């Protein structure tokens, strides 16, 4: 009897931890995965193979708070003639002809708080490389959120680079 109890206790103890690890797998399914997009736009092709600079499409990144999603006109400047036979460009052209925006899904799913200010312009003009926060986009067929964008992440980078760490720099 005692042997069975000991065997069952050992099994229960280890099985509990094994199941807990497997349960953690559900967290992975919901966290920071690259979202599906209505058009299979590939940064790997545009940045990695065609060597387009980030600021060519995200032209507000060095001028405004937000980097912004490129305008459809920016896409159509080239795709009015380039790769018009591909499904993605045909989808894009259809949106363009219907005068509808492409319903892109948000990649950086963070809670925007009114009292937190982040300026792309400040960081780009200070020489922070885009890939430092956004990862190796030249190798991303589908973009995912690379950095946590949590306060500790911001503060540690500011500390490492002797950038200001005063609370009012970001919180107003």
């Amino acid at each position, binding site marked *: 009897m005692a042997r069975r109890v000991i065997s069952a206790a050992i099994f229960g103890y*280890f099985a509990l931890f094994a199941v807990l690890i497997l349960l*953690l797998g559900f967290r*992975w399914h919901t966290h920071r995965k690259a979202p599906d997009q209505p058009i299979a736009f590939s940064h790997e092709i545009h940045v990695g193979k065609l060597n387009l600079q980030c600021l060519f499409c995200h032209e507000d990144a060095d001028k405004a708070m937000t980097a912004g999603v490129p305008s459809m006109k920016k896409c159509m400047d080239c795709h009015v*003639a380039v*790769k018009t036979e591909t499904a993605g460009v045909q989808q894009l052209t259809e949106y363009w002809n219907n005068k509808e925006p492409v319903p892109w899904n948000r990649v950086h799913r963070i809670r925007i708080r009114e009292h937190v200010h982040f300026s792309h312009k400040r960081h780009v003009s200070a020489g922070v490389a885009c890939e430092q926060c956004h990862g190796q986009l030249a190798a991303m067929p589908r973009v995912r959120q690379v*950095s*946590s964008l949590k306060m500790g992440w911001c503060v*540690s980078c500011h500390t490492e680079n002797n950038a200001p760490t005063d609370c009012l720099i970001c919180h107003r």
Partner: protein
Amino acid sequence: MDFLSQHIIPPTATHLQLLEFLAVVTYTIHLPYIALVIGSAAVAMWLTFSDHEMPNPLFARLAGDLIGIGLGSGLPMLVLGVLPMMVLPFIYGQWFVGAPHFPLKYIVLPIPGVILGLALLGLYRRSFRGRAARFHLHMALGTGGLLVLMGSYFALMSAIIRLQDPEKWFRLKNVVILLLNWNVIWKFLLFVHLGFALTGAAILFFVLRWRGRESVTDAEYAAFARRFGAGLGLAFCFAVPVFNLFYVFTSPDVVFDSTVYLLGAAVTVLTMIIAYAFVAALRSGQPRFGATTFSLFILVFVLSSTFDVRSMANANREHARLIETKAESERLEREAEIEAAMAASAGRNLGEETFNGVCMQCHRMNDRLVGPPLATVLTKYANNVDGLQNFVLNPVKINPEYPPMPNPGLSSARAKAVAEYLLGQMAAPADGAQPEAQTPTPTEVQSGQKSH
């Protein structure tokens, strides 16, 4: 590293997989040895100290056997401890060739400390027989060696585990940030506890089974060693799933796929089987289950190492893709050189084919399309084939009225051919061979789009 990249292991996707396999093999050889050294040295020191305080010949004998098992002679220390560790910087140096902020120095710096720790423990082994006369020196060598080894190995493990978190590499200028990380701390505690449990299995296997066939005829010592080994192994087995769970929980999300989670769970399940074997060894009056527990522990280290290496590969998959792309473009460059030579020998004009297939998607000679009319921009490249070739290979934005020209992805040979063709057309417009008048065939367009 450049020599390795170019001549021995060119970093392609296949070779990255080979390096991952090599890393698992290296860890499978190295980690159980280091874990056994730490576990057996610590337990031997405790037994020696206890024997010194209250003489017990069983303690002294087991301490001697443990030192023989864990610290052995110089050869296993070199082959299992030092040499595999020297391979690690080459494996990771190759895997992360060209990666920005790659913290290779943190993998190299702790290695001398690990070697010093092993050397001090070697001296501790040698001083075991004369410990009665120089007990404090003997214990100081053991304590110093153990602390140096564990400290250096913690630093080495920190550097290797941090490879799974490339997002934070730019922060690793500060060593304190490198070391103070819960993920690393749980991993090290998991490793040390596996080491103590492995020491219990080693007592059952090496003392009672391996050597036991010849020398352990003393029933009292055999029973003591069996109970001590199985009890030690079982106690530390219970800590393994706790630290394993914390390690998995604190690993960055970017490392995970379903295989990694299964590997993490498999480590816990395998440890459970080992715990059952230890319980059976405690209940059995015979020195059994030594080979079973020891072999299963080696398998635990294989699974744990595979978990770490696959996590590293998952976290850096974009870097692997960049390497793959670079290797692919180098292959295409070589093929294009062959193609250019074949075209020249067959009398084909590679420049004309490239212009019709690639350039004409955006350019005409006299009209504006996506890019400017070529007739207006080619004049500045008159008699400058190299200049035009360089621009085609590395285009930059010049005229604000037009979008920047994307890299057409041409090989050097094709870019040179198209530059020569275009400048030839500019030099001889009177011949009537206007490029814009030539409509590419569908086959040519398709082949051009592929190379584009």
